[in-house]
């Protein structure tokens, strides 16, 4: 089949081509149905690609038939096929949820622009993940960033504007750092293809230029992935963006940046250089631990629940980075599987908050009194998502924390294992605060409003993700199996 051999590029081109069409369609229901079809198509493509990669190994696609080191290559192995799947699952499910929430939060005359920006952001994220070319990665990074700044600024609260502005400034600095890093690499090797870079860099590794390239690149990516202490843009951006946007970005954008970090540490620079020459683990480990503790602790004191979940994201990113910094098969597996699991649960939790905002008009803790009785189905989803965030057995959160703790013990780092558990305990506190208010406090006297449950499409979207957190918590071969394979591939110890 001709079309099958073009799947890697279709993964990116389908949403890219659909984005301007959204602007032309204009009518809001038509645009939504169109965007929905597009996003589910990308999901189907991602599933097909993952199957083929697991079956046949790495896929390589030469754009415009220009062969690899000269032309742009799309290179998909187990690692990025997994991330592609994650991004397109979230992209598809969040769009299913979107219409009612978008109607509520975004002015009716700009719905088509919203869906257009959403698809562009999806394109950018899929492009970053799929590409095998360093400069192409920068371009897709900017496509996704620019559209996410626009998406965040659509929030109702005027603070969404300042949050988007702050993210724009920090995001551009991050992206420019990445550009400098790529420039230095090109200077030493004369190539931009990642696989070729990996070969060419081998002989010039200990030059100051390459060390500088590595420094600029990793700081730039750390800014984009909101590694503590470079997370300052994240809480406000997530708290004030429209609910749909928050759920989508929280579940995908930082994860894709973590993938970029993985790809450059392990494939391009190589583990010897990153961990032995540059001692990256000695930098990442403490930052990840501080991120976990500070992020979780600050989350406890938030009254805006979207903001609370945003700080919890800072902590969860810490867990993923921790997994990388262990530099072992178990640790890396834990980090990669947590990337997937966290996307499912945080996506679901933010979707629940979007529903709450739609029904009671606020996401402040004080307004959620008695919500457990008023919206039982929705809040049940919050409870399950929250349990998963804590890491209770039978949820996905448990699987990833188990692997991280195992990895810590494997390396004899007992204090780290204790700190991981401490992070979970703090998560119990902030999740419990919401549960306590929603289930054990009575509705404020005088509040006689009739609160309806959410519409069916929103329920389906929320429960698809929540269902995922339970199913993948019990049957692990898909998520954990692929994560193990990806980790083995990155470490170069193929089983």
């Amino acid at each position: 089949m001709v079309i099958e051999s073009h799947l890697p590029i279709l993964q990116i081109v389908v949403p890219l081509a659909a984005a301007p069409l959204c602007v032309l369609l204009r009518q809001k229901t038509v645009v939504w149905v169109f965007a929905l079809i597009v996003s589910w198509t990308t999901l189907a493509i991602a599933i097909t690609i993952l199957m083929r990669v697991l079956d046949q190994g790495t896929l390589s696609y030469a754009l415009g038939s220009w062969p690899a080191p000269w032309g742009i290559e799309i290179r998909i192995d187990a690692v990025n096929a997994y991330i592609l799947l994650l991004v397109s699952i979230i992209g598809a499910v969040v769009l299913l949820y979107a219409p009612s929430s978008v109607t509520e939060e975004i002015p009716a005359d700009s719905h088509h622009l919203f869906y257009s920006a959403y698809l562009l952001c999806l394109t950018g994220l899929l492009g970053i993940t799929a590409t095998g070319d360093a400069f192409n990665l920068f371009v897709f990074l900017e496509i996704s960033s620019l559209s996410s700044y626009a998406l965040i600024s659509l929030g109702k609260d005027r603070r969404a504007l300042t949050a988007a502005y702050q993210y724009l400034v920090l995001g551009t600095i991050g992206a420019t750092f990445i550009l400098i890093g790529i420039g230095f690499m090109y200077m030493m090797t004369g190539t931009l293809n990642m696989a070729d870079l990996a070969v060419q860099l081998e002989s010039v590794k200990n030059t100051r230029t390459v060390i500088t390239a590595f420094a600029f690149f990793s700081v730039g990516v750390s800014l984009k992935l909101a590694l503590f202490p470079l997370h300052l843009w994240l809480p406000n951006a997530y708290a004030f963006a429209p609910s749909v946007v928050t759920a989508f970005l929280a579940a995908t954008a930082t994860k894709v940046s973590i993938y970029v970090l993985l790809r450059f540490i392990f494939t391009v620079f190589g583990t010897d250089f990153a961990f032995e020459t540059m001692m990256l683990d000695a930098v990442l480990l403490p930052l990840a631990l501080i991120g976990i503790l500070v992020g979780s602790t600050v989350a406890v004191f938030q009254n805006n629940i979207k903001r609370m979940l945003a700080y919890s994201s800072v902590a969860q990113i810490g867990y993923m980075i921790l997994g990388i910094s262990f530099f072992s098969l178990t640790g890396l597996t834990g980090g990669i599987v947590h990337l997937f699991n966290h996307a499912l649960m945080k996506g679901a939790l933010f979707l629940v908050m979007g529903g709450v905002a739609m029904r009671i008009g606020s996401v402040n803790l004080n307004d959620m009194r008695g919500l457990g009785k008023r919206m039982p189905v929705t809040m049940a989803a919050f409870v399950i998502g929250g349990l998963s965030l804590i890491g209770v057995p039978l949820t996905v959160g448990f699987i990833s924390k188990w692997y991280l703790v195992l990895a810590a013990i494997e390396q004899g780092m007992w204090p780290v294992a204790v700190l991981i558990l401490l992070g979970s305990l703090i998560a119990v506190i902030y999740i419990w605060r919401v549960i306590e208010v929603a289930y054990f406090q009575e509705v404020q006297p005088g509040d006689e409003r009739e609160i309806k449950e959410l519409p069916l499409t929103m329920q389906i979207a929320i429960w698809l993700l929540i269902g995922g957190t339970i199913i993948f918590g019990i049957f692990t071969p898909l998520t954990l199996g692929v994560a193990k394979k990806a980790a083995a591939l990155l470490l170069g110890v193929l089983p």
Partner: protein
Amino acid sequence: MQYLGLYNYWIAVILMMTGFYIVISSGNLIKKIIGLNIFQVSVFLFYISMGKITGGTAPIKTDAASIYSNPLPHVLILTAIVVGVATTALGLSLVVRIKEAYGTVEEDEIHSQDEAW
């Protein structure tokens, strides 16, 4: 004096730090965008001067020349310039919206308004 021979890189470094300093120190949102622009342009200059080869001519094949400059970084930077323009446009339009919502483009005044709110 070999370090002075690389004056093109020194210019990039100075511009970069100037831009970065403006982004960090200025409280005016428009000045921040200008700083961001200078910061980005320094990286463009870095790429462009990287492609120059001493004694090389424009990369058009003629019999008169045997050394050519590398056109690839220049082409890359064309893309990055487009990205930079888009970022500036988006940043400035956000500033316009912020001005409409807050009535000011000074960071500390916006902060104090948010606190009071």
